[in-house]
């Protein structure tokens, strides 16, 4: 059963790579946006909140199409990045990572925002009165105390990135070895005559990766919680 073909191994490796990069790329901005939404009241608060959650409610194919228009070879952002940084998204694994980043972002926001909201503001006040500026107060007080939520957000984001299909296939297609992640490979195998065993194997493997990620997050959370 676990006699994997090269195509399957490539898809698994690519999926882990895409999901890891997407998680690492989405986490810092997700922490900042979640903190801003939790702590600050500013004009455009509601608009930012809505924009952040848009990928959650839009059909994934619409998100993928939007990415194609923006970050495709001739899209404004895509052309700019390709010209100045040599960064090309269209039909590359980097595009799959971008799609996964965008799709997992809203899932990361909620738990991180909730855990920031649960940190008593006056702890930050205490830190400020002791000489810490806003950044130190955030790094030394709010962020460590919100760590359990950040871990949950990261794992949720990773799982979402691993399973992302609609936006990815719309944006970067389904190219074995380049953009064919596990979900796209499963889809291809299902379309192929007698491909069901391969599809089933990959389905089990993606479930196993997701479960391992959940177990790791549980363990990390327990450790973070035990310190409080």
């Amino acid at each position, binding site marked *: 059963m676990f006699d994997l073909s090269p195509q399957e191994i490539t898809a698994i490796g690519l999926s882990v790579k895409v999901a890891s990069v997407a998680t690492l790329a989405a986490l810092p901005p997700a922490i900042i946006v979640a903190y801003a939404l939790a702590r600050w009241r500013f004009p455009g608060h509601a608009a930012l909140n809505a924009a952040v959650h848009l990928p959650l409610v839009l059909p994934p194919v619409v998100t993928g199409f939007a990415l194609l228009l923006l970050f495709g070879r001739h899209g404004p952002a895509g052309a700019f990045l390709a010209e100045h940084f040599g960064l090309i998204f269209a039909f590359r694994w980097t595009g799959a990572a971008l799609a996964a980043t965008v799709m997992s972002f809203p899932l990361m926001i909620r738990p991180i925002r909730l855990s920031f909201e649960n940190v008593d503001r006056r702890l930050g006040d*205490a*830190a*400020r*009165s*002791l*000489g*810490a500026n806003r950044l130190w107060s955030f790094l030394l007080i709010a962020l460590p105390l919100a760590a359990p939520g950040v871990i949950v957000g990261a794992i949720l984001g990773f799982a979402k990135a691993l399973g992302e299909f609609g936006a990815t296939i719309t944006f970067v297609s389904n190219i074995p070895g380049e953009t064919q992640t596990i979900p796209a490979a499963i889809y291809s195998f299902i379309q192929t005559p007698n491909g069901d065993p391969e599809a089933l194997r990959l389905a089990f493997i993606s479930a196993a990766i997701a479960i391992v990620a959940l177990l790791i997050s549980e363990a990390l959370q327990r450790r973070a919680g035990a*310190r409080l």
Partner: protein
Amino acid sequence: MIALDLRYACANFQLSAKFASDARIIGLVGPSGAGKTTLALLIAGLLRPNAGRLAANGVTLVDTDKGIFLPPEKRRIGFVFQDAMLFPHLSARQNILFGRWFTPKPERRVPFEQVVETVGVGHLLQRRPSTLSGGEKQRVGLARALLSSPRLLLMDEPMASLDFSRRQEIMDLIERLRDAFAIPMLIISHAADEVVRLADEAIVLDHGRVVARGAPLETIPSASRVLEGGRFMVANALKASVASYDARYGLTRLAHPAGEIVLVAQIEPDARPIRVQVKATDVAIGKSYPVDTSVRTILRGMIVNIDANDSPLAFVALELVGGDRLTAAITRLALDELKLHKGDDVFALVKSVALDERGQ
């Protein structure tokens, strides 16, 4: 030490406070909603005033005319919160050292060992805040604020969540800190005994304005009309010396120039004077020396002030023989029927005396 003139307004509250004081400890009192905490947050820089000036120890922290607004981390004003607000993910030691890390080396005037010893937290340093009791947390919070070498120490109801004996300990401690570190303090309190005992000056706030200020013993009774329905009871501090312990009745007799004070406690005679506290509501007034009464502590004095208004209670301030002040809360009815006036020689019948555990 502190001079301020601040105006602040938010949706349903306005504050306009102005005072300057050189007192070592200022007691800031007032009913809830008077703006005490708002004023403390403005001083600490955690709220931004609409207009005004603020200086501590001669350093301008806020001057809206000149566009000066120092952020809290640049003010070096220690803040002690009611519930300590220790950082839960750090040990007591890390909490205490937090502010020191941000204090520039030349300005680290307060040595760690001395604070730990004075505050008495040496045995708690490795513990997490969640394992500390209320009094221990408050001690660690005080040590943390001190270690940042503050220009001024603000305490917002530092004892409100503590029981009686823990409160006495923290009051002792605040006095030791005042003497050991010479850091001016502003204590927000709703407990008259705390302010009377600790503060050199009381400032009474109501509806966002300073309505009275002065020596605590005189200011608080006269301001009592703005203080919540009598909950804010006046306490008096008297100085006396231990004459003898009466083992048969379990009482200690204290010698005071105005008469003998009987205390339900055992204290061994000692050359040093001790302090006792008397609540204003535990004091009755007689025009002649009472003979048939169960009250054993009867002190001679003269009425120096009567504070009566429409409320049923009046406050009568006495100057006892020997100079101590004693305030009695009596009904306005008694005041009128006994025809008490300023300058009358009277006797204070003290029903209950508590030892003020501040030692010397």
